[in-house]
């Protein structure tokens, strides 16, 4: 039986069970984790223990008047190629990933660069629920209640310099725990990278998520921290982030490197610009049923018109 500590002891004064357990696991497996170890040694890296969320107030989200996707669908149908290309692979294999401890490396055009344990990075940040539409570039969509906070709140902590025009996000590269990265047949250049323009990252709709459906993020949804940019196609919302780099120039993004004619840098949801292999004019809203694909029209910016001003004067057909 675990006795709960009195509330005047801060979490950093004690070592929660999940942390020492994961440290033991970490030491046991460090032989196979050489790559991961290099980034972890010498930091007091702490991911997010289950109690972390329970101890916090989360401001409830505004309902958007659309039916929410069931938690089981949102956690079993995922594109997370680090675990395999099948929609069911992430749910099957993501448990192999250790997300605690977790550090994020903040580099580039910031006054305070450095590696920081996730829990430290999130200290003092208020959590809120955001119920967002998620529109995948593959023309399906969900409605998901995320728990997170605006990207700009975290970026602000590291004091971006005036040269910071873009921000790049990098997913963990740990083939020992991410079997998709070991796949012989994959032609993706790991690690997965994505990027935003600074003004996009600073838009209040752009959030980092650490939870969904009232719980911490499951691994298959990008634990322990991921981006959610609801007006862009899902592939922009990079998962399991280990590096944030502020840059002068536009960063490369994985899918654009792989197939530049199909995936752009901006990737704003846009019903008027078709993907070369399929139409983007409509989408299948989950859950669909066998004889009713539940096709609904796709909206410009996924219905988030408030971001339109970010793109005044930009040709969205050319910059798709």
């Amino acid at each position: 039986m675990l006795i709960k500590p009195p509330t005047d002891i801060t979490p950093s004064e004690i070592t929660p069970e999940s942390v020492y357990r994961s440290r033991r696991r970490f030491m046991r497996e460090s032989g196979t984790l050489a790559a991961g170890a290099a980034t972890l040694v010498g930091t007091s890296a702490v991911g997010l223990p289950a109690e972390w969320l329970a101890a916090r107030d989360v401001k409830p989200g505004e309902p958007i008047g659309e039916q929410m996707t069931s938690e089981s669908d949102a956690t079993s149908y995922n594109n997370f190629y680090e675990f395999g290309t099948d929609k069911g692979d992430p749910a099957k294999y993501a448990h192999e990933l250790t997300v605690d401890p977790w550090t994020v490396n903040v580099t580039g055009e910031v006054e305070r660069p450095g590696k920081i344990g996730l829990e430290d990075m999130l200290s003092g940040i208020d959590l809120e629920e955001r119920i967002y539409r998620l529109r995948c570039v593959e023309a399906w969509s969900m409605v998901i209640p995320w728990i997170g906070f605006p990207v700009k709140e975290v970026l602000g902590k590291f004091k971006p310099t005036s040269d910071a025009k873009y921000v790049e996000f990098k997913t963990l590269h740990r083939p020992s725990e991410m079997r998709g990265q070991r796949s012989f047949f994959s032609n993706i250049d790991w690690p997965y990278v994505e990027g935003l323009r600074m003004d996009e990252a600073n838009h209040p709709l752009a959030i980092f998520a650490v939870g969904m459906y009232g719980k911490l993020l499951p691994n298959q949804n990008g634990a322990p921290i991921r981006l959610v940019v609801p007006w862009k196609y899902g592939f922009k919302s990079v998962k399991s982030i280990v590096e944030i780099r502020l840059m002068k120039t536009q960063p490369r993004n994985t899918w654009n490197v792989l197939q530049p004619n199909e995936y752009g840098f901006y990737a704003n949801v846009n019903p008027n610009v078709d993907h070369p292999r399929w139409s983007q004019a409509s989408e299948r809203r989950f859950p669909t049923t066998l004889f009713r694909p539940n096709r609904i029209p796709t909206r410009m910016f996924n219905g988030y018109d408030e971001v339109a001003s970010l793109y005044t004067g930009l040709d969205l057909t050319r910059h798709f």
Partner: protein
Amino acid sequence: MIPTTRLGIARLGVFCLLALPLVLLGVDVWREVAQPGSAFGPDPTEEVLHYLGQWGIRILLLTLAVSPASRLLRKPQLVRFRRMVGLWAFSYIVLHFAAFLLSQAGNSFETILAVTLAKVRFAVVGFYALVMLIPLAITSTRGWQRRLGPGWRKLHRLVYPAAFAAWIHLVWLSKGDFMDPLIYGLVLVLLFGERIVFRIRKERRAAAANAA
């Protein structure tokens, strides 16, 4: 009618084997209809579409494997299964196309037409593969075989471009992972290769016989 000959029993066995994926799909569809979401996850139409497509190309390649197998194993009687295997391949591919149309429900007729015939290249090439198989299915009967005479063999060579088109269909719809196109491509190379080798040998034998 219950078959009594060995060939009859073997035919029934092969028939059942080729029907099995469809039967299993039928069971899942039954479960899905009884309780939506129970059998295929959140996107059942796509699941069914891919499943039928996968089995379509597999059985199409199996059809192409019958003649080489009969030559390599020296069992000419295997060729007597070829029509059945081919018709099963055609059936899966037709059902695959039906599932595609189902997945397009909610789109206008013009959009579906544009997707299938012009806009989306993997859909277009897949559609051509199906179109090429239609005359083969129609003329697969003994009656047509007789009526067409030597033309029948020529016509049925359409199966080669059809299989190639099916493979291109797969290549063009893949992204990020090339396991399926590679494996199916390798099989296709082997099946085409055996035929080329067989033809060359046959011509050499004929030349040698003429010389003697």
